[in-house]
């Protein structure tokens, strides 16, 4: 299965949310990373065919998804952000309703709904009204509804928002087990979620692809640009503001270790560190400060 965007463009007034995007997705888990306003949600909505592009098209195995219509939607599972629901429906009723929308028969709908409620840890709450749910419970219900039809293309917008660490682990395991022979696209601000499960990373900036590849490949772009420097705690805040700093960690002796992303050695005592996805995120999406060590 191959999902491809061709010169995909979407504008809102003077803002170009998705800008002549060309990308080819085959089976696997894709992590979509980008700052707020980078165009992630618009891209997902375009892929779900609930927004029409101003230019370009999306094709699945060579066929335009608009023409495929119902056939395409029967392959699709989508968790939007924010996730809308009916407050007076119970969790089970909501899943049965979505099952009916997805064309599942009565028996299959019940089995699948109960199975997914179990998988997302909501089976004990199946007959509770959704309006009584916490944010995390609603989010888990949202994940369950997206997977009801066993979709071949699963698109999840901020799936881990509101989930506690235990639930996030449960989610990662669920998606990893589910993803075989499917296209799973998930966007999140929690970089570690993507780092653990995504097979490919798509970095989006101003509606364009800023980086695309396997995590290690893409992270290797900043090899030699991540540094750790030890500074007195008193001036740590000032130093952190002066550089693109991904982390501050207090050491025992009144000193602080800064993790800095910079093309060249930022301080005398700086030592190179192994880059990770958070460093990459910062490298792409945070504007570098203009100060140098000398100015400090």
């Amino acid at each position, binding site marked *: 299965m191959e999902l491809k965007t061709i010169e995909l463009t979407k504008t809102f007034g003077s803002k170009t949310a998705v800008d002549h995007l060309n990308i080819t997705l085959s089976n696997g888990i894709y992590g979509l990373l980008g700052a707020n306003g980078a165009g992630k949600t618009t891209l997902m909505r375009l892929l779900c065919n609930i927004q029409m592009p101003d230019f370009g098209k999306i094709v699945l195995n060579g066929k335009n998804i608009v023409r495929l219509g119902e056939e395409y939607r029967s392959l699709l599972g989508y968790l939007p952000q924010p996730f*809308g*629901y*009916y407050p007076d*429906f119970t969790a089970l009723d909501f899943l049965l309703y979505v099952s009916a929308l997805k*064309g599942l028969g009565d028996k299959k709908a019940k089995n699948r709904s109960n199975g997914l409620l179990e998988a997302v840890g909501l089976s004990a709450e199946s007959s509770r009204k959704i309006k009584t749910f916490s944010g995390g419970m609603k989010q888990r219900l949202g994940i369950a509804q997206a997977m009801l039809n066993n979709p071949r293309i699963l698109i999840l917008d901020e799936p881990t928002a509101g989930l506690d660490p235990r639930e996030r682990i449960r989610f990662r395991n669920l998606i990893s087990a589910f993803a075989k022979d499917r296209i799973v696209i998930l966007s999140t601000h929690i970089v570690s979620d993507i780092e653990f499960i995504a097979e490919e990373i798509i970095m989006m900036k101003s509606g364009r692809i800023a980086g695309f590849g396997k995590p290690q490949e893409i992270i290797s772009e900043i090899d030699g640009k991540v540094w750790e420097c030890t500074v007195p705690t008193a001036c740590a805040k000032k130093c952190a503001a002066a550089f693109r700093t991904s982390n501050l960690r207090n050491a025992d002796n009144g000193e602080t270790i800064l993790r800095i992303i910079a093309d060249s050695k930022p301080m005398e005592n700086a030592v190179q560190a192994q880059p990770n996805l958070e460093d990459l995120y910062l490298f792409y999406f945070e504007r570098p400060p203009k100060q140098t060590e000398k100015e400090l």
Partner: protein
Amino acid sequence: MKKLIQFEMKKIFAKRLTHAAVAAVLLLAVGLEFSSYQNMYAFDGEGREGRGRQAVEIDKGIAEKYAGTLTDEKVRQIMEDFKPAQDLHGMNAAYIYQNATQSSAFRRFSDLEGNWNGRSVSDVFGHETIKIGYTYGWLRTSQDMVKVFIFLQLVIIIMLAPVFSGEYGGVDNIILTSRYGRTKCAAAKAIGSVLASLAVTTVVSAASIASALILYGSNGLDCSILFAPTEFVDGYIPFNITCGALLKYQILLAFSGTVSVTGITLILSAICKNQMTALAVSAALYFLPAVLPVPENSALFKLIAFLPLYNAQFVSLMSISQMGNGLLYSLWAVPVAAVAVSVGIVVSCRVFARHQVL
């Protein structure tokens, strides 16, 4: 599809606002009926008078005495039996109310002093055969049902305004990306809405009629609406139909009105971005004909009268004309409603299917 329609109806009826609105219209239907009943007054001309149940008993007793076809002899007998005994101090006897039968006769056949004005039954009603009996309870029921049906159509608007627009708050994402979201689901919403409005109209109509049957019994349903107390003479339906036919027409027009309202509300619900806007625009459009400067005798009124408000306020629509086969022009409201709801279903489904989530 059946499952989807069930879910859509469940969504409509699960809302607290729907519960409150339906309860309010049922309360209004039953409350108005009992209020009219309690306020009824009758004097039998021989010293017995009363209100409420007693008034209905007096009216029924008098109506039974003269029941059958209205003749000149009966008219003169009624005039004689209820001739004012006191000086009227300049008041017009035709408008003085003692009981339903007296008022019906005096309004048509009395001069200022309460004497026969010299007009015969054929002078007043032409060659129509006027069957008389106890009709007052049913005529008052019909009058109350006008208010109930106007409010009922507003309730339908409250129920249906969120059908599409309510989804635009976030669930549209899920619906429109699902297999049947743009096809069967949109159709299920429209069909569910029509069924829900028909169900509520049935329940409300049944509540009104059942209350009237309990209070007034079934007497008088085969009697003409033309021999009626003073409040049902000026500006009332001028055709010789029975009370039963009047109620059938009224209920049919209530259904055609709610079906038309359903069609219009569905379109606005699909177009408007949120349910409050859909509700406000639908309600404003519903009441718009009330402020249109179109006189009832103009040709344009023949079209405007098919708007839902005039279906509920049925007297104007039923007064337009009687067709050659004896049926009233108002029956055209039924095909008009069928067209309105068909257009409503098609347009709302297409708008919803093409809706872009922003």
